[in-house]
C-alpha cells in the first residue's frame, strides 16, 4: 500500500521494486491518494481520499482488522500481538481517551498548549533493588534508576490494556465514517482493508510505503505512527516484505538525518543538549535523556554520547571536564526551519548559510521567508546555479512589485560556486539506511568546490582565527578535532590538492580506539571512559578495519544483498528482525524465514564462554538482537540494555522491548493518533468536537494570516507536490533545457467540474489565491482530479507542483507564496500537503 507518496513520480528508480514484486511475484499494489497520479496508474487499486484524512482511513482499517473473523481466529496474529507489541500492557487507570473527552486526551494543561504524560504511563510493578549501590560510572547511574516492569494482561481482556484502549479509540472509525469524512466509497475502502488483511499473516506480509504526503501535516507524526500501529497489529514488522518504508526526499537526506543536520539531534539520534531541560552537566544530560529508555539498547547511551564528544575534541575531552560537554552548544528553543525564519524576520538572526537549499521558493509562505532574508546582515549561498534565494535582493517578486527596494536591503550576499555530485567523493545513505560510496569522477570547474572542502577549510580558518584567543568560550573551536588532510594518493589524479579526505571523515564517524586509532568493527565495543571515538555510533562497522570501506562493496544477490553497501546499524536491512521468528525462535513459515534460533549452534561470547544456541540468518542478514539471547531468556529486572530485555522482546530500541500500539511517552500530542482536520480545512471535524491538532504550532505574526475553518472566501483544498521531471525547487533541473522542455511552466491540476464552475479553460491561465499571496498558473483540467462529497457537501481539491521560480529556463510563479507557517508539534514539519484557497480564471492582477 502506497499512501502519502507518489512513488512512481518522486522515487522513479526505487519504484522498479514494487513493479518487480507485481510482475514477478504477483504482488497487489494499492495507492491511497487524493489524486490519480502516475503511481495510481501503475497500481491495482486506487482509493481516493480527501487530503488530510489519512488517520481516519488508517484508523478504520485498524477497526476493520481487529474486529475481523480472520484476525480473531488465526493464531498467528494473537501470538505476534500479545508477545511482540505492548497490547497486553496495563495503562494508568486515570487515562481518558478522546472518546471520553471530545477529542482530547487526559493530561491537557490549563492553557491547552501541552499534555502531561502521567496518565498515559504504564502500570508498573515495584522498583527493583538497584544492581549497584554506588554510581561510579554513567552506566551505574542508569542502573540505579531502573523502573519496575510494566504490568500486563496477556488475555487482553482488562479494560486498561493497551489493546482494549485501542479497540475503543477506533470503534467509531467505520467504513461509513470513511465515506463521510474521507470521501472514499465504502466499497473501495473495504477492498483496501481486506487486501491488507488477506496479505498479512504467517505466510504473507504487506508493506506500507509513504513519503512527505504523510509527513507534511499538522498531524504528520501521528499519521506515520498509525501506520506503525496497523503494521504491528498485522504482524508485518521485523519480517521480510513487511515494514514501513519512508521514502526520503532526495539523495542522502537519510544520511543528513543520521549525521544530523537537524537542530535538535546529534549524530546517531542522540538528543541535542538543551538549555530548557535538566542538562546542566553530562551526568544530568545522560540521566534525563537515557534514564527513561535505559531498559532498551539505549542503555548504552553513555558510551555513544561520550564517544561522540571524544570525536569532537579528542585529547581535550577528558573525564575531568565532562568530555567537553559544557562547551558543546545547547539549543534554547525550537530552531527548526519555520521558527528560524520567524526569528529572522524579528531580527534575531544576523548571518545565514544556505547550502543545498532554496528557501526563497521552497520555503512555506515564501514571501514571508524572502522578506526575512532582507533582515540579515549577511548570507552565504553555496550552489551550482544562481538560485532564487541568492538573488532575492535584486529581482524577487517583492522587488518587481516595489514592496522591497534593493537599496534598502542591507543583507550582504556571498555566492560561492559548489561542485556537483560526480565532482566529489563521499557516501549516500538512502531510504533503507544503506550507505553507498560514490567516487569523484572529475574535478569541478574553476572555483567550484565540494561541500566537504568548504566546511573543512572554513573550520581550518576559524581555528586559525581563534588560535590565540584567551577567551574560554573559544575552547570548542581551538580544540576541535579537525584532521582530514588528504593522503597524497587520494588527490594524485586531481587538480584540487587540498580536497579533504572523505575516508578520514567516515572513519571518524565509524569510530576508532583513541590510543592506537584502530577502526572499530561494531558499536558493541564502544566505551564510556573516553577510550573510544565515534562520530555516530549507528554507522560503526562501515569501516571495520583500516582501509576497508563496506560502503564500497558491490556484490548483489537476488534478495537482501548483505554484501552490497552497508546498512546501518550493523548491516541490518530489516530492523527488529527477531520478530521474523515466533516465540520459540522458529521461523513463522518457510516462506518468510529470515532470522531464527538455532539451538545446536555453539558460539563464543565476547567474555570467552561458549553459548549453546544462537540466532542465525542464512541470508546473511545482520541480526538485530543479541545473538546468544535464547528465545526463552527472562531479562534481569534490575538490568539495563540487553540485560533487561527478554528473549521475546524484539523491539530492542523500545524501553519495554515491544512495538508500541499505544505510546506512553514520546509523542507530545497524544498516545494514539486521532482524526483532526488540517489546520486550514473546508469542513468542521465530523469525528470530534476538537477541530484540529490542539498542539499544532502556529505563528500569529504579520505576513502569516490563517484562514478560518470552512472559510467561505477560501473553500478549495490545495495540495503542493513534485513531478518526476523536476527536482525540488528546480535548481538542479530547471536550468537544463532537456528537463525544462518536459515540464516548461507552472501548472495547476483541477477537475473539469471545478473548471466549469469557475470558467477556467484547459492550458489557459488561472489564478490561485490565499490570504498569503496570489499566483498564476496554466490550468491542467483533468478527470484525474475529482471533487469529493464530504458529509453531503461537494469539496473541490486542486494540486500544484511547486518546482518553479523566476530564475532558469523553465519559469513560473512561486507556489509557496500561497502556503502558510503552521506545523506539527512533534517535529515542526509544515502542512504543505493541505491548506485552503480559491481560484479564478485568468492571470493574476498584481505583481505577486
Amino acid at each position: 500500500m502506497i499512501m502519502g507518496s507518489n512513488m512512481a513520480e518522486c522515487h522513479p528508480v526505487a519504484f522498479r521494486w514494487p513493479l518487480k514484486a507485481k510482475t514477478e511475484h504477483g504482488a497487489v499494489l494499492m495507492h491511497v491518494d487524493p489524486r490519480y497520479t502516475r503511481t495510481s496508474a501503475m497500481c491495482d487499486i486506487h482509493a481516493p481520499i480527501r487530503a488530510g484524512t489519512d488517520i481516519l482511513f488508517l484508523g478504520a482499517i485498524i477497526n476493520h482488522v481487529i474486529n475481523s473473523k480472520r484476525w480473531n481466529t488465526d493464531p498467528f496474529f494473537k501470538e505476534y500481538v500479545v508477545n511482540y507489541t505492548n497490547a497486553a500492557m496495563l495503562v494508568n487507570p486515570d487515562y481518558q481517551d478522546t472518546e471520553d473527552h471530545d477529542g482530547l486526551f487526559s493530561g491537557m494543561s490549563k492553557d491547552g498548549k501541552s499534555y502531561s504524560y502521567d496518565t498515559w504511563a504504564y502500570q508498573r510493578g515495584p522498583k527493583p533493588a538497584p544492581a549497584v549501590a554506588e554510581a561510579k560510572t554513567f552506566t551505574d547511574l542508569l542502573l540505579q534508576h531502573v523502573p519496575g516492569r510494566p504490568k500486563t494482561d496477556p488475555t487482553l481482556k482488562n479494560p486498561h490494556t493497551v489493546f482494549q484502549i485501542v479497540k475503543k479509540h477506533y470503534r467509531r472509525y467505520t467504513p461509513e465514517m470513511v465515506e463521510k469524512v474521507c470521501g472514499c466509497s465504502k466499497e473501495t475502502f473495504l477492498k483496501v482493508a481486506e487486501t491488507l488483511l488477506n496479505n498479512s499473516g504467517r505466510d504473507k506480509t504487506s508493506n506500507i510505503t509513504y513519503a512527505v504526503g504523510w509527513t507534511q501535516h499538522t498531524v504528520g507524526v501521528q499519521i506515520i505512527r498509525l501506520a506503525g500501529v496497523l503494521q504491528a497489529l498485522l504482524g508485518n514488522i521485523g519480517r521480510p516484505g513487511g515494514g514501513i518504508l519512508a521514502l526520503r526526499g532526495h539523495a542522502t537526506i537519510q544520511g543528513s538525518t543520521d549525521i544530523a543536520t537537524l537542530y535538535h539531534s546529534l549524530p546517531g539520534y542522540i538528543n541535542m543538549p538543551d538549555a530548557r531541560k535538566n542538562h546542566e552537566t553530562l551526568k544530568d544530560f545522560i540521566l534525563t535523556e537515557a534514564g527513561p529508555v535505559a531498559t532498551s539498547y539505549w542503555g548504552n547511551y553513555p558510551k555513544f554520547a561520550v564517544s561522540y564528544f571524544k570525536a569532537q575534541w579528542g585529547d581535550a575531552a577528558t573525564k575531568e571536564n565532562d568530555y567537553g560537554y559544557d562547551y558543546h552548544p545547547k539549543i534554547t528553543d525550537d530552531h527548526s526551519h519555520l521558527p528560524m525564519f520567524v526569528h529572522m524576520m524579528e531580527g534575531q538572526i544576523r548571518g545565514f548559510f544556505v547550502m543545498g537549499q532554496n528557501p526563497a521558493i521552497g520555503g512555506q509562505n515564501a514571501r514571508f521567508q524572502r522578506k526575512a532574508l532582507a533582515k540579515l546582515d549577511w548570507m552565504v549561498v553555496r550552489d551550482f546555479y544562481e538560485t532564487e534565494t541568492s538573488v532575492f535582493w535584486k529581482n524577487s517578486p517583492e522587488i518587481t512589485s516595489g514592496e522591497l527596494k534593493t537599496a534598502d536591503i542591507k543583507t550582504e550576499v556571498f555566492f560561492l560556486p559548489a561542485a556537483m555530485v560526480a565532482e566529489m567523493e563521499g557516501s549516500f545513505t538512502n531510504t533503507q539506511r544503506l550507505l553507498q560510496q560514490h567516487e569523484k569522477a572529475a574535478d569541478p570547474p574553476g572555483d567550484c568546490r565540494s561541500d566537504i572542502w568548504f566546511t573543512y577549510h572554513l573550520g581550518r580558518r576559524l581555528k586559525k582565527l581563534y588560535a590565540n584567543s584567551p577567551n574560554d568560550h573559544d575552547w570548542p573551536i581551538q580544540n576541535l578535532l579537525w584532521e582530514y588532510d588528504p593522503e597524497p594518493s587520494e588527490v594524485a589524479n586531481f587538480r584540487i590538492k587540498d580536497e579533504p579526505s572523505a575516508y578520514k571523515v567516515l572513519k571518524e564517524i565509524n569510530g576508532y580506539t583513541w590510543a592506537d586509532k584502530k577502526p572499530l568493527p561494531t558499536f558493541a565495543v564502544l566505551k564510556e571512559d573516553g577510550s573510544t571515538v565515534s562520530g555516530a555510533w549507528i554507522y560503526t562497522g562501515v569501516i571495520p578495519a583500516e582501509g576497508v570501506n563496506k560502503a564500497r562493496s558491490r556484490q548483489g544477490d537476488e534478495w537482501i544483498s548483505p554484501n552490497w553497501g552497508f546498512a546501518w546499524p550493523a548491516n541490518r536491512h530489516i530492523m527488529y528482525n527477531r520478530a521474523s521468528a515466533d516465540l520459540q525462535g522458529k521461523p513463522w513459515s518457510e516462506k518468510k524465514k529470515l532470522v531464527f534460533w538455532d539451538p545446536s549452534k555453539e558460539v563464543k561470547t565476547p567474555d570467552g564462554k561458549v553459548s549453546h544456541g544462537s540466532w542465525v540468518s542464512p541470508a546473511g542478514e545482520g541480526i538485530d538482537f543479541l545473538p546468544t539471547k535464547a528465545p526463552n531468556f527472562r531479562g534481569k529486572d534490575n538490568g539495563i540494555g540487553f540485560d533487561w530485555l527478554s528473549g521475546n522482546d524484539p523491539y530492542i530500541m523500545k524501553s519495554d522491548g515491544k512495538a508500541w500500539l499505544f505510546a506512553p511517552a514520546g509523542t507530545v500530542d497524544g498516545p494514539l493518533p486521532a482524526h483532526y482536520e488540517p489546520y486550514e480545512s473546508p469542513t468542521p471535524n465530523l469525528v470530534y468536537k476538537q477541530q484540529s491538532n490542539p498542539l499544532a504550532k502556529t505563528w500569529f505574526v504579520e505576513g502569516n494570516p490563517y484562514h478560518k475553518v470552512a472559510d467561505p472566501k477560501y473553500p478549495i483544498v490545495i495540495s503542493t507536490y513534485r513531478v518526476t521531471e523536476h527536482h525540488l525547487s528546480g535548481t538542479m533541473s530547471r536550468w537544463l533545457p532537456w528537463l525544462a522542455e518536459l515540464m516548461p511552466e507552472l501548472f495547476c491540476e483541477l477537475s473539469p467540474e471545478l473548471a466549469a464552475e469557475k470558467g477556467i479553460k484547459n492550458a489557459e491561465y488561472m489564478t490561485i489565491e490565499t490570504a498569503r499571496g496570489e499566483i498564476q498558473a496554466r490550468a491542467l483540467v483533468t478527470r484525474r482530479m475529482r471533487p469529493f462529497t464530504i458529509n453531503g457537501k461537494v469539496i473541490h481539491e486542486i494540486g500544484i507542483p511547486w518546482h518553479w521560480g523566476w530564475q532558469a529556463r523553465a519559469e513560473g510563479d512561486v507556489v509557496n507564496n500561497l502556503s502558510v507557517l503552521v506545523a506539527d508539534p512533534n517535529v515542526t514539519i509544515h502542512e504543505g500537503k493541505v491548506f485552503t484557497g480559491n481560484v479564478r480564471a485568468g492571470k493574476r492582477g498584481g505583481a505577486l
Partner: protein
Amino acid sequence: MAKGMFVDTSICTGCKACQVACKEWNGLPGEPSHFHKVPNRPYPVAFNFTGNSYDNTGQLSATDWRHVRFIEQFNENRTEGRWFFSSDSCKHCTDAGCLNACPVKAIVRTDMGNVFVQQDVCIGCKYCIPSCPYGVINFSEKTGTVHKCTLCNDRIHNGLGTACAKACPTGSISFGEVSELKKKADARLSQLKGLGFTKANIYGYDEAGGLNVFYLFMDNPTVYGQPLNPIVPQRRLFKSAAITVVTAIAVAVAALISFRERGMKKETEK
C-alpha cells in the same frame, strides 16, 4: 542477428528518463521551438506547455528521437479510469519505408538490423519523410538533413545497449536480440492474459514486415496512437504500377478510338 527493443507499456511509469537519456547520449539539444526569448533573461525560456496531460513535447522531431505519450481515459464519475504511458521511437522496420525511399542510399541497415541515416550522405531531399508510416523521421533546418533514432548505433556496435533502455528505471524498455525479446514479450503477454487483461496485445510482429522495436499494449494500438495497418508506400508500388499500366492502356485505346472516329469523320466529309 537483429538487435531491437521491446517496450512493455504496462510497466512504463511515464517518467521520460528515456527521452532525456536519448538526448544526452546523442548530443541532441532542447527542441528549439520549445523555447523563446523573454525580456531581461539572457537565456531562452521554455514555453511549450500544451495542456495535453503530461505531454509537453508532443511528437518526435529531428531533435526528439523519443517521445512518451500520455493517454488519459476516465468516465465522468471516475468509476472507470486509466492513464497509459507509451514511449515511442523509430521502430527499425524490417521493411523500412524511409530506407526504400532514399535515392542516395544515405539510409542504410547495419549488420545489427538497425536503420541508420548517414549524415554525410543525406542530401536533404525529404523523400523518406512521407515514406515513414509512423512519422518518425524528420528534417532539420539546421543541418539540412534528416534525423531519427539510430538504435544508438555507436553504443550497440561497442557492446552496449541503447541509452533509453539503460536509463529506463522499471525495465519497460529492454534492448537485446529480437528473437530473445520476443520470448520475453510472449511470456509477459500470456501472464497478462492470465490475469484477465484480454485486450493486451503485441504490436510489431507483423507490421511493416516486422518491427525490430515492438510493443506490448494493454488495448488496441490505436489507443496509443499507432496505426493498425501501417502501409509502407513502396508496398503499394505493384498495385499503383498496375493501375498506371491499365490507365495508360485505357487512354491509348480511347485515343485510338478517338483518332479513328475523327478519321472516319474526315472520310465522311470527303
